[in-house]
């Protein structure tokens, strides 16, 4: 039975899920950092930060699983992608450092709270932008020769990758704003709803632009999406995206708490599925497939045993942690 299992494919799906979990989970807490400068200093910012303080660390662990998992499962892909995206990755890490320490430091030093508020926002902003650029640079393709990255140091910097970078900032901003709608009360909630409306429209516009742009980047992508009968299989993706968009705006209009956030999550999941449809079966687009990058089956199987046992446990206690900290955070109030 084990022999019949296509382990690289199983692991590609698992890793894709880990990356998706990262994007939507850290997405909303990075998003809180992105909308942070629009909140009033002091209590509004305290409240916004308190909505994510107990969970951000767990959210960011999915990024470590993404990086560590890529190293473990597709070492060749990891060895090619990291040098190719050297600068955006380093800048992303530096951004994450700034915002990560701000969670603790801003409470330690009230006189310099303005500085750590700035570090939190700027770190979130840079991390989101660099993640978006990383995504764009991957989609547009990476030059490989002799098991190594063979391109130049600025290959990642293109109009396309800058657009995906901007899109991720705005998309995370949407997640952050709708998260605040879910977790706070007026006046923060009302403010977050206004932001979510603007970010929602911008996100949808950018999803449309990037989707079309991607298709024209490569004839393979074009065939995936527009050739008959493939178009019948992929058609649900744009249709559900339209549905999620409708749900987002009606949820905001009816002042629901959870519906806007869930709709924004759905937009991310659908965009991610769309990305998967374009890229499969490549892990380094256009050059390395998941099978040629995969570690040997002995490694994959050994890790699969752990993943099958531990991932459900992780999901269970992460969900428990969210359950413990459920409900609204009132302004000027926190968790304890």
């Amino acid at each position: 039975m084990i022999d019949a299992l296509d382990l690289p494919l199983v692991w590609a799906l698992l890793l894709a899920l880990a990356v998706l979990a990262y994007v939507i989970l850290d997405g909303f807490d990075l998003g809180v950092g992105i909308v942070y400068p629009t909140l009033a200093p002091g209590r509004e910012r305290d409240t916004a930060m308190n909505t994510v303080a107990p969970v951000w660390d767990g959210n960011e662990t999915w990024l470590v699983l993404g990086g560590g998992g890529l190293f473990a499962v597709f070492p060749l892909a990891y060895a090619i992608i990291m040098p190719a995206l050297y600068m955006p990755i380093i800048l992303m890490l530096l951004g994450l450092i700034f915002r990560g320490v701000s969670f603790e430091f801003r409470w330690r030093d009230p006189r310099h709270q303005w500085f750590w508020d700035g570090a939190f926002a700027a770190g979130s902003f840079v991390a989101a932008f660099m993640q978006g650029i990383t995504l764009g640079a991957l989609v547009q393709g990476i030059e490989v020769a002799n098991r190594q990255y063979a391109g130049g140091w600025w290959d990642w910097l293109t109009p396309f990758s800058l657009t995906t970078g901007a899109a991720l900032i705005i998309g995370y901003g949407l997640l952050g704003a709708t998260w605040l709608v879910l977790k706070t009360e007026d006046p923060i909630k009302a403010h977050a709803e206004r932001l979510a409306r603007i970010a929602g429209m911008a996100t949808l516009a950018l999803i449309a632009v990037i989707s079309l742009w991607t298709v024209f980047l490569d004839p393979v992508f074009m065939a995936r999406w527009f050739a008959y009968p493939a178009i019948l299989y992929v058609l649900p993706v744009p249709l559900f995206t339209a549905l999620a968009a409708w749900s987002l705006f009606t949820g905001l209009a009816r002042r629901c708490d959870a519906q806007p956030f869930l709709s924004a999550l759905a937009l991310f999941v659908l965009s991610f599925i769309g990305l998967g449809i374009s890229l499969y079966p490549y892990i380094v687009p256009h050059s390395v497939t998941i099978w040629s990058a995969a570690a040997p089956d002995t490694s994959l199987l050994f890790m699969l045993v752990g993943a099958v046992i531990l991932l459900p446990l992780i999901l269970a206690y992460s969900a428990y942690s969210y359950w413990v900290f459920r409900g609204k955070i009132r302004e000027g109030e926190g968790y304890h």
Partner: protein
Amino acid sequence: METALAIDFARIQFAFTVAFHIIFPAFTIGLASYLAVLEGLWLWTGRQVYIDVYRYWLKIFAVSFAMGVVSGIVMSYQFGTNWSVFADKVGPVLGAPMAYEVLSAFFLEAGFLGIMLFGMKRVGRTLHFAATLMVALGTFFSAFWILSVNSWMQTPAGYSINDAGQFIPVDWWQVIFNPSFPYRLAHMLLAAYLTTAFVVGGVAAFHLLRDRTNEAARLMFSMAMWMAALVAPLQIGAGDLHGLNTLEHQPTKVAAMEGHYESRRGAPLILFGVPDDEAEVLRYALEIPYLGSFILTHDWLGEVRGLKAWPRDERPPVAIVFYAFRVMVGIGLIMAAIGAWSLWSRYRGRLFEPGALHRSMVWMTPAGFVAVLAGWITTEVGRQPYTIYGLLRTADAASPVAAPAVAASLTAFVIVYCLLFGIGTYYLVVLMRQPPHPGEPGPEEGKPIRTAGITPIAAADRQAERNGSATP
């Protein structure tokens, strides 16, 4: 030339980022266990002082842990950005234990840290204690897996090499429990406990010197001194066993540690000297005859191989290893001496009387960190020129990244780390300078869940100000 420069920058970058990183786990591994013990004692005895001390160190734990997390994320990407050839070759073997570290340790720590820091009123005492235990367990699992990875790089086992030049796992048991792993794990865990004990003891001594009646400070000092008295001698024993294991598997490292260039029977123990790699001699050696052979071979006339037994391009740089090893051993011996001293004070009933012991402990507060760094420098520089000992040279493991790119990222890391972790350390010192005070609010059972206050840390500070005990 260009490539050699890029590799040097990559080396410095890895050494710099990992050295900064290891400081925080070395502290939080020990502190998490200490917090679990304190909370357990509090649940068991119901004595307020245990939860006071718990909350005091929880604030410090939160700041240290945040710095450990963010500096750790950098490490998980650094293998790829600067050492991509290494990543490609060893990923099939080392990826799995690292993936297990993420799955079994990082998620456990992160998942329960929120509850540990913010959840006492929401989950109640018992579940909160369970969360503290999970965080402590997570720090242990993390140490287990990452030390297994590091040990495999020192003493590789259970692998074969495929056509693409990748290391392929053959026997997972041998990979994980490779020959140096049990020794390294024991040595590092004891080091983490000792580091924490000396921080706790040093901070307690600082406050006892100001107020010998501070009950929380007395408790901290007593517990820390028990740890020092019991663990420091154990650590010396563990270190000796680890050294013998290194002699068996990495003889060049031991030769550099000992400062032996010549192979000989009945070798002396060199206490101090100045290694000269050019001339291949140890100058100004202060030595004890025959003791070197006795320690390394447990035979007064046993043969000890010197560095000249290997070609020059197989040897590590001697001076760094030689000095770092002496710093580590020196601190270990001082720690054991202070542990013995504290037993004597305790026996005389003078443990809490401010005196030389307390002043010494204040000076020794950061000693554990220095010893940990010196120990890691010894073992990491000592395995050079290899990254996978005997199999893959460090120089052949680097990314095809140009020197200016590595130099730029190195500069950015140095600036950001010095700034942020410098400020973070300052905040930690500020926290430690505040005396622990009684009556920090415990969980109020039976009351409805309250969502007042800001964060427990800030709330604890305000409490301190109300008590008038905050340092001005």
